[in-house]
């Protein structure tokens, strides 16, 4: 029982971080209908920027995180302005492939800038374990990461419910033409979505780096798990990323422990294909009626 509880807590913690990693992905898809295959690189770059600012430049943690977020926002804006804006109205084929090319280019840049050797986590991440419910040991860095993820998700939810820009983004996601008629600048909303996704990527990357206790290219391997998460939850649903992240996180932990590490690496992708066959728009995604 203790083992099961332990796995559940770990799985939920991983799930929270996966959700955050998937958030940037969903933000972009919701607003612009672009699948960003470079989101994994956004995570890696965010993690490296924070590491760089904190450990190499010796900045205190609030500044380091700020540097990372600003870098993420600039990256998102640059990608939107220089590449994706030129492809508005092109076929989804071209758009997908441009983000694949972007992923490859960014990967090359990361490799050249920071090298292939993994670095440690940023210094401000807590270490050690905390005991919950009597005898369930949880790594402190995981708890910390879950805390940050919850804060970010509450902030995002509030943003979409209360703020002017959040409502405008939802309007654009619903119907671009209607939003334009209301006087919303769709271009600015697109840029805004990419900037938010860059920032979310940075925070997600930072959290991934802290639970894996290293900052390196391996993060990308973890980052590809966002695909099962977003397909399970629904590509355009923020609620879906939370639930999908939780489910995938738990399943990975359970299968890893009860069935073996190989099964846990494959299972999310088997689920992905199964979901596409059975319920293609996921648990919470908006069902679009179209001829296939």
């Amino acid at each position: 029982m203790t083992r099961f509880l332990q796995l559940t807590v770990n799985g939920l913690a991983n799930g929270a971080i996966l959700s955050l990693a998937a958030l940037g992905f969903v933000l972009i898809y919701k607003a612009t209908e672009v699948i960003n295959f470079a989101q994994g690189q956004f995570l890696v770059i965010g993690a490296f920027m924070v590491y760089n600012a904190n450990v190499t430049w010796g900045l205190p943690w609030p500044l380091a995180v700020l540097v990372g977020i600003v870098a993420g926002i600039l990256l998102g804006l640059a990608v939107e302005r220089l590449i994706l804006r030129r492809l508005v109205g092109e076929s989804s084929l071209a758009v997908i492939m441009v983000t694949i090319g972007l992923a490859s280019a960014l990967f090359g840049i990361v490799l050249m800038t920071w090298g292939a050797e993994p670095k440690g986590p940023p210094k401000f991440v807590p270490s050690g374990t905390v005991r919950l419910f009597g005898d369930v040991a949880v790594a402190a860095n995981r708890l910390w990461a879950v805390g940050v993820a919850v804060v970010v998700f509450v902030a995002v939810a509030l943003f979409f419910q209360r703020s002017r820009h959040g409502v405008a983004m939802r309007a654009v996601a619903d119907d671009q033409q209607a939003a334009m008629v209301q006087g919303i600048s769709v271009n600015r909303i697109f840029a805004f979505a990419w900037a938010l996704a860059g920032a979310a990527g940075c925070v997600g990357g930072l959290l991934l780096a802290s639970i894996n206790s290293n900052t390196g290219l391996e993060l990308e391997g973890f980052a590809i798990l966002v695909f099962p998460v977003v397909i399970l939850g629904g590509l355009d649903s923020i609620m879906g990323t939370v639930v999908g992240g939780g489910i995938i996180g738990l399943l990975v932990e359970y299968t890893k422990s009860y069935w073996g590490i190989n099964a846990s690496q494959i299972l999310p992708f088997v689920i992905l294909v199964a979901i596409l066959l059975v319920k293609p728009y996921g648990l919470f995604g908006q069902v679009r009626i179209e001829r296939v």
Partner: protein
Amino acid sequence: MATATGVYHTTYGRDFALRHTRAEYARLALLGAFAVVLPFTLDKYWLSYVNLILLAAVAAVGLMILTGYTGLISLATAGFLGVGAYTTANITTRLHWPMPVGVLCGTVLAAAIGAVFGLPALRVKGLYLAISTFAAQAILNNRFRDWPWLVQGHFSIGAKTPAIGHHVMRSDFEWYWLLLVITGFVVWGGVNLFRTGFGRALIAIRDQDIAAEVIGVEVGRYKVMAFSIACGLAGFAGALQAHYRNVVTWERYDFDTSFLFVAMIIVGGLGSVSGAVYGAAFMTWVPAYITRVGQGIQQGSSGTPFIIRELPAIQLGLFGVVIVAFLLFEPRGLARLWQRAKDYFRIWPFRY
């Protein structure tokens, strides 16, 4: 030289012909002569790259049929190369069956697995389908890496060098002729596929799937078949590559390789079979050339120069930049550039 300044066909047969003018036949003959002379002029290093280009072209033509003509993306080309390679390696080393049987089994198995991952095409389109193939790549690559039975408990697995009678085919020179014939057949088949009803149905699906359905094309079935053809050709290329290189390791079949094939067909030009060949040549030759240049620099200076140390990074980054640049500036790729050059000279000195 006869040139065509307009359309003067009087029979359907003439209209359907792939080549209309004597200049076009002359160019084909020149290409044939070039292919015959080429292996006598190259050293072993570059000839091995020519062979790799021919192998890549087989898989690239398959991907072109899927992406360039049917409008579906596959991010799993490397995975299916691997299916072919591991299948033939296991069959020829364990069961001791001859190489053609192994290659055939690899091709069929890759086509079958490809059809399974193409099944979501019955429910979803576009973006979702791309993610399905992404999952295929993740699953297949994981199996290659962590399935002890498949690699017989080793890190890598050997594939036999083929033999004709008692003569073992080892040299690049002999392989060149074999691969030239095979690739020639695949390209010829690819070009002619789009003059058949089946090929035209695929093009109809790409251009407007609802209209295709209306005129009686079973969209779902054709999409799955396109997946199956593309994956089968990838498996075929992978199986041949396994025998050519004698050793099969999982690193060769990861995401980067899949992206490389996507880059090939974009650079070559979507919607053109010859473009797939240009793309395969370009994307295989450029890294080889960069490596050579890097080695040249290394001999001239002491220590490890930047370009050698960062070679993998530079290659990956360059692939990405090339994909993005072609999509933004010349979405129809090298094939279109070549077409434009031909048009320019055909009607010279007039502008149009």
